[in-house]
């Protein structure tokens, strides 16, 4: 059975030879046109006059379109119908597409896009969280989840802390930038190749922009060069632009963003500020807590409401909060429209409670691990049913045992002692260590999205064609799902043809997001394969007069007890000749999830995924430079569908999460211009930043309590938050720089600059 084996990524051989084709690698017809957006150079205001003649006169330019030239709907938004493809005269952020250049080459289009002369009446942009609060700019009124009586609990608590953490955003930096290719078909139909996690949405937006029904547009996605949420909605603009020009000219049209444009135009992870007040006992047990989350959404709504919801839904992380109030402000600003990014608000919410725990430990002079230990949800074996702040029972908690196991294998207690010893003996280099947990809710919180479809064919030679609604962005979804199909038929993985996601094969799909890819599509594929298998069994029962249990599919063969063994190909051929249908669709909808987001109550998640990490860091008190010396991770993926791919997700997620909290800093100037719009200024982790010692393990006791595909658990997002251990270890190291009386209250990302300021604050305190 191929499920649970560490098989390589389905396209690995193509990747190592450079033969895997991304959209920008596809050979295009010679008359293909290329597009570039002309971007606004102010962050807020109105266009008073626009002279596009110099653009039109530039070499290679065929046409320049503005919003007045669009045939139908001028909208590329994910939900709220508030994102025009081209500005309608109002400017909402610096870098907003204003006009569209059609040229004979990519370079010609980009060069010409710089030549417009636009007069604006400029307004003062609303950039920061404080600006938005002052201006009352929000996407909806604040939302509040309440459990118990937090104010009363805080009022009578033995200890109370108050504080605040600023949390920076994050650029996705998928290595392949956004790209789309539109190929006009007969009768006004359109074929789109898009680097998108959400082909169905691309289909719907293109159809809307062309003024045509969905069935006239086909979207195909073979693979993306990374997504991380950044390609859930942000590809709409390119797909729509290429489709419109393809329809108008009858020619193939391609558009890709250069890295700078990609970073300037597209949304990022939401910046947050979280204010907190917590009451707690002498042991550090939290008796009452109140969070106020301020979320910077940017100029358009995009997925901000759901992201802010998920931040609220993760304000507890793995801790049982008996009395909690979580208030969320969803703010509108004149910056890029922030969007989905791995964790989808969860990491920000989680960082809030981790900060509270760290702060409590400092206040009590305890090891933060001890404070964590007294606050975890109780293990699932424990009869007591504890609930989240949104009143969902936590019935699958395994964090206690995982943390105990990890603390032992990572030698946490002894190393904490060694760190203290090091810090007592060394003045310049200080060390810190931290163990942090992750509990992450799995399911789309917009409940209806928890559905998936699949299409499976068996050809008469026994080869299998597999299709489903999920997209491949490097995570190995196609491989995992093919393993499910191979297992159903007892075939080797090589017998399964994995095919591009295609809206003409499986309709009405959800985005490949929320870590749901293999949970949803794996089950849908299994449903299709089970039908086909049952048809083959029914056929063979008739042929051989045997029972179902006498027929086994294994090793590429079909064994019939007491009779001959047939090759799968022979069975397929004979079934075909006996007029058995060899094609099936499969469908899956996650059971049992339902909640009310406005009341903050119900079961938004089918289950939780858990993990924990221990990181040890060293910081240089003279420069703020830092290194991760060692990280140990234990992560729960249930019963792994593919340990090699799952480990890859855990390692990659951790490093990406660490980047978010350390080196990756987005800087805007006071006009709203993004200053960090290339890898020269925006630093994602490099090979040299990986922990010097990195021990990563999947939890061998992992088993999903719920009936997921082969009892596996989702793995895309949860490990991202393991990076919190590095942030907390840095905080721990900074604490060692002074007399230990003041809490470092480090903001994220902990860049060398921030670390240095925090060290100075500690040392200043010492000197005072």
């Amino acid at each position, binding site marked *: 059975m191929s499920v649970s084996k*560490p098989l390589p990524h389905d396209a690995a051989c193509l990747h190592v*030879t*450079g033969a895997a084709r991304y959209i920008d690698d596809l050979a295009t017809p010679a008359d293909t046109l290329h597009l570039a957006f002309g971007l606004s150079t102010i962050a807020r205001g109105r266009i008073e006059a626009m002279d596009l003649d110099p653009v039109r006169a530039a070499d290679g330019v065929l046409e320049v379109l503005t919003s007045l030239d669009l045939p139908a709907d001028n909208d590329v938004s994910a939900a709220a119908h508030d994102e025009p493809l081209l500005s309608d005269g109002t400017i909402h952020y610096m870098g907003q597409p204003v006009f569209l250049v059609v040229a004979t080459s990519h370079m010609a289009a980009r060069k010409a896009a710089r030549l417009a002369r636009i007069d604006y009446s400029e307004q003062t942009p609303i950039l920061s969280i404080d600006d938005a609060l002052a201006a009352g700019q929000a996407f909806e009124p604040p939302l509040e989840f309440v459990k118990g009586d937090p104010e009363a609990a805080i009022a009578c608590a033995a200890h109370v802390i108050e504080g605040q953490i600023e949390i920076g955003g994050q650029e996705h930096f998928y290595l392949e930038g956004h790209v789309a290719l539109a190929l006009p078909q007969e009768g006004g139909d359109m074929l789109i190749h898009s680097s998108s996690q959400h082909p169905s949405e691309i289909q719907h937006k293109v159809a809307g922009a062309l003024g045509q029904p969905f069935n006239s547009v086909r979207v195909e996605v073979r*693979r993306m060069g*990374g997504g991380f949420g950044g390609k859930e909605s942000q590809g709409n603009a390119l797909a729509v632009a290429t489709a419109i020009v393809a329809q108008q000219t009858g020619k193939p049209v391609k558009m890709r963003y250069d890295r700078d444009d990609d970073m300037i135009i597209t949304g990022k992870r939401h910046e947050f500020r979280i204010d907190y007040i917590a009451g707690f006992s002498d042991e550090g047990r939290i008796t009452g807590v109140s969070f106020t989350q301020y979320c910077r959404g940017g100029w358009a709504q995009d997925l901000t409401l759901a992201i802010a919801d998920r931040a609220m839904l993760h304000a507890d992380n793995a801790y049982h909060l008996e009395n909690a109030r979580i208030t969320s402000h969803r703010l509108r600003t004149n910056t890029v429209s922030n969007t989905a990014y791995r964790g989808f608000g969860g990491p920000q919410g989680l960082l809030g409670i981790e900060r509270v725990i760290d702060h409590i430990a400092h206040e009590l002079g305890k090891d933060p691990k001890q404070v964590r230990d007294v606050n975890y949800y109780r293990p699932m074996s424990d009869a007591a049913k504890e609930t989240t702040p949104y009143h969902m029972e936590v019935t699958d908690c395994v964090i206690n045992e995982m943390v105990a196991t990890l603390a032992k294998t990572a030698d946490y207690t002894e190393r904490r002692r060694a760190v203290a010893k090091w810090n007592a003996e060394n003045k310049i280099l200080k060390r810190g260590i931290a163990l942090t947990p992750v509990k992450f809710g799995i399911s789309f919180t917009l409940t209806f999205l928890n559905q998936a479809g699949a299409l499976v064919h068996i050809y008469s030679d026994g080869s299998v064609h597999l299709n489903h609604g999920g997209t491949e*962005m490097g995570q190995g979804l196609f491989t995992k799902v093919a393993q499910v199909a191979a297992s159903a038929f007892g075939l080797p993985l090589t017998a399964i043809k994995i095919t591009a996601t295609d809206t003409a094969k499986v309709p009405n799909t959800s985005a490949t997001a929320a870590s749901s890819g293999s949970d949803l599509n794996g089950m849908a594929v299994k449903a299709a394969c089970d039908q086909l298998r049952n048809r083959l069994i029914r056929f063979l029962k008739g042929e051989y007069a045997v029972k179902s249990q006498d027929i086994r599919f294994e090793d590429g063969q079909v064994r019939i007890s007491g009779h001959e063994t047939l090759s799968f190909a022979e069975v397929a051929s004979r079934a075909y000749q006996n007029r058995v249908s060899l094609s099936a669709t499969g469908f899956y909808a996650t059971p049992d999830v339902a909640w009310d987001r406005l009341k903050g109550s119900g079961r938004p998640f089918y289950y939780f995924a858990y993990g924990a990490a221990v990181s040890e860091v060293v910081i240089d008190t003279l420069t703020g430079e830092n290194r991760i010396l060692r990280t140990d991770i234990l992560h729960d993926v249930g019963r792994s569908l593919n340990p090699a791919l799952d480990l890859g997700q855990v390692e990659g997620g951790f490093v990406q999460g660490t980047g978010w909290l350390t080196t990756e800093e987005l800087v805007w100037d006071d006009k709203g211009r993004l200053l960090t719009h290339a890898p020269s200024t925006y630093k994602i982790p490099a*090979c040299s930043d990986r922990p010097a010692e990195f021990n990563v393990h999947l939890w061998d006791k992992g088993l999903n309590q719920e009936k997921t595909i082969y009892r596996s658990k989702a793995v895309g997002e949860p490990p991202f938050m393991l990076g919190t251990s590095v942030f907390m270890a840095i905080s721990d190291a900074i604490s060692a720089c002074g007399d230990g009386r003041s809490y470092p209250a480090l903001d994220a990302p902990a860049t060398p600059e921030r670390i240095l300021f925090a060290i100075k604050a500690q040392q200043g305190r010492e000197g005072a």
Partner: protein
Amino acid sequence: MSKTHVTTTINGTRTEFLCEANETLLTVLRDRLHLTGAKEGCGSGDCGACSVTLNGRLVASCLVLGVEAEGAEITTVEGMAEGGELHPLQQKFLDLAALQCGVCTPGILVAAKALLEKNPDPSEQEVRYWLAGNLCRCTGYDKIIKAVLAAAADLRGAA
């Protein structure tokens, strides 16, 4: 703009092309010669996705002009496998799951090959710092480092 005639050797094959004076080697490889293994990750020499070797030296092909290829020997990821047999680096990347989305993979393979040609027995730290100019957003680098070290051991064994 008038085009320049360039004669060069790519992956051991004598190759001629016409290109404009301001065209990068990356554009020539991808758009004129249809060698799309090298990718444009940033266009500013910071990400390493377009790595190739020019006369044995590792370069970012987005920072080299096409005309600079005149008389030079260029190797790309497409030239790594020989006669259908994968280079040990390619094989180890496959075996050890050292790739995810795959966009950085060609550049990292070319860069790693350049390292092993200079230093057949690198330490883990040398691998980590040599590859620091090749960004990967997916893997977290651990399996990449292990694959390079494993391939180095293989190559030393074969030598």
